[in-house]
């Protein structure tokens, strides 16, 4: 096996190739199926959340504890030494001596990359500002593969704020490793930026741009939704006019196919009505739960306890 993740940090999707992603997916599947039990026993993981993110932190903590690992850390910079003016570099150089791996989130972009240069243990990036949040993308890909076996040949719709959304940009890059067709569904103001569509052209990936969700959505294998924020609009009236077109409820999901799965990175606000949570195609909670085995596999690979 040519892939060895031991000692490696996970900072950005741009550090990964297709084989590595598939390998991580395979190992995540094994972990979810109950193999590699106790893969983090005897290991200590630090969760340094300089910026709060309760969901991500709980997912990582659950991942570590379930596999027999120990965890310590902080959940906001108010409770860390950065409040006293300590540099990120110094914090990392200190904590690296206390643990086997560091999971960190920071509002400054590039913080995780910097940390990985000064740490002696693997760094897992749990979000650096608007830049990267690779484990979210890994769990998205894992969920898609779990539901449909393979990503090749699938048609995936990305809906909502495609201009600013880190999640959809990162997902797009990961999906570009596969033979997919993409549909971008967003208001004009929040269209997928040109440098991403140019990127898809260079990779030879077919994509479509739709103004609204309509009957074409029946062909989608997945519809990945993200929230549209009012602040993104220059004209608030425009927001009021368009927002309804990107909300999923009992009525609008009739446009979807029988096997069009609905995904969302969570937390949701009102872009997905609670009334559809019971629909079999709504898999966003399952998707969130997949974060646990994927993060377990990632930590196990980085620590060399899974091979």
């Amino acid at each position, binding site marked *: 096996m040519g892939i060895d993740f031991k000692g490696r940090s996970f900072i950005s999707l741009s550090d990964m190739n297709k084989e590595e992603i598939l390998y991580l997916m395979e190992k995540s599947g094994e972990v979810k199926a109950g193999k590699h039990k106790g893969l983090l026993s005897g290991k200590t993981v630090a969760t340094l959340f300089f910026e709060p993110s309760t969901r991500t932190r709980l997912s990582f903590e659950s991942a570590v504890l379930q596999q027999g690992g120990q965890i310590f850390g902080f959940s906001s910079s108010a409770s860390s030494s950065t409040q006293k003016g300590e540099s990120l*570099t110094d914090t990392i150089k200190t904590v690296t001596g206390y643990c086997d791996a560091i999971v960190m989130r920071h*509002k*400054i*972009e*590039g913080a995780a*990359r*910097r940390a990985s240069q000064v740490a002696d243990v693997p760094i897992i990036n749990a979000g*650096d*500002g608007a*830049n990267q949040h690779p484990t979210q993308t890994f769990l998205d890909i894992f969920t898609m593969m779990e539901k449909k076996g393979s990503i090749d040949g699938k048609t995936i719709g990305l809906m909502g704020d495609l201009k600013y959304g880190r999640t959809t940009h990162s997902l797009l890059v990961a999906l570009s490793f596969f033979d997919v067709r993409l549909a971008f569904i967003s208001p004009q103001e929040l269209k997928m930026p040109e440098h991403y569509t140019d990127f898809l052209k260079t990779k030879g990936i077919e994509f479509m741009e739709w103004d609204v969700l309509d009957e074409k959505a029946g062909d989608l294998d997945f519809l990945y939704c993200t929230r549209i924020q009012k602040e993104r609009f220059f004209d608030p009236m425009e927001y009021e006019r368009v927002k309804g077109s990107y909300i999923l409820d009992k009525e609008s999901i009739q446009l979807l196919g029988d096997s069009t799965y609905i995904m969302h990175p969570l937390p949701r606000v009102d872009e997905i009505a609670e009334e559809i949570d019971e629909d079999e195609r709504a898999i966003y909670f399952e998707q969130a739960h997949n974060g646990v085995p994927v993060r377990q596999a990632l930590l196990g690979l980085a620590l060399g306890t899974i091979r």
Partner: protein
Amino acid sequence: MSGDRSYRVFKIEEGTVIDHIPSPLGLLVLDILGQVSEGIISIGLNFDSRRTGKKDLIKYEHKVIKKEETDKIALVAPQATINIIKGGTVVEKRSIDVPDTIEGFLTCMNPNCITNLEKVKTSFDVVEKEKVKVKCRYCERVWEVKPNMIEKDGRS
């Protein structure tokens, strides 16, 4: 010959001639490279050029341009050429190539980038060479290089 005219303006025995800088970028190149030099620095603007229409020219007496300085010129005037002069003749002709990576002398324009907030040396991958575009290795933003991103020397 008109090509010789510019060389007659301020002939140097030892040093560097940066030629074929497309006008009006000569002053910008001078600004970026700085004005600290043991010898005379002469600048000529607006010569006729077959290659670029009008060209500017800078001569540094007693100074041999370093690799980092060549890279800086490449970012603003990749069409320029560099001649190293010794004993009154050209001993080395350098063409300017945009490098694959740039370490240290470019500033990332993202105010929320770690390189602007902590003591971290900047580092960029060049992603496009024609209209030079660079990608910050930290925040991963892509920038078209603008002169104000280039750290200037010789401001002492």
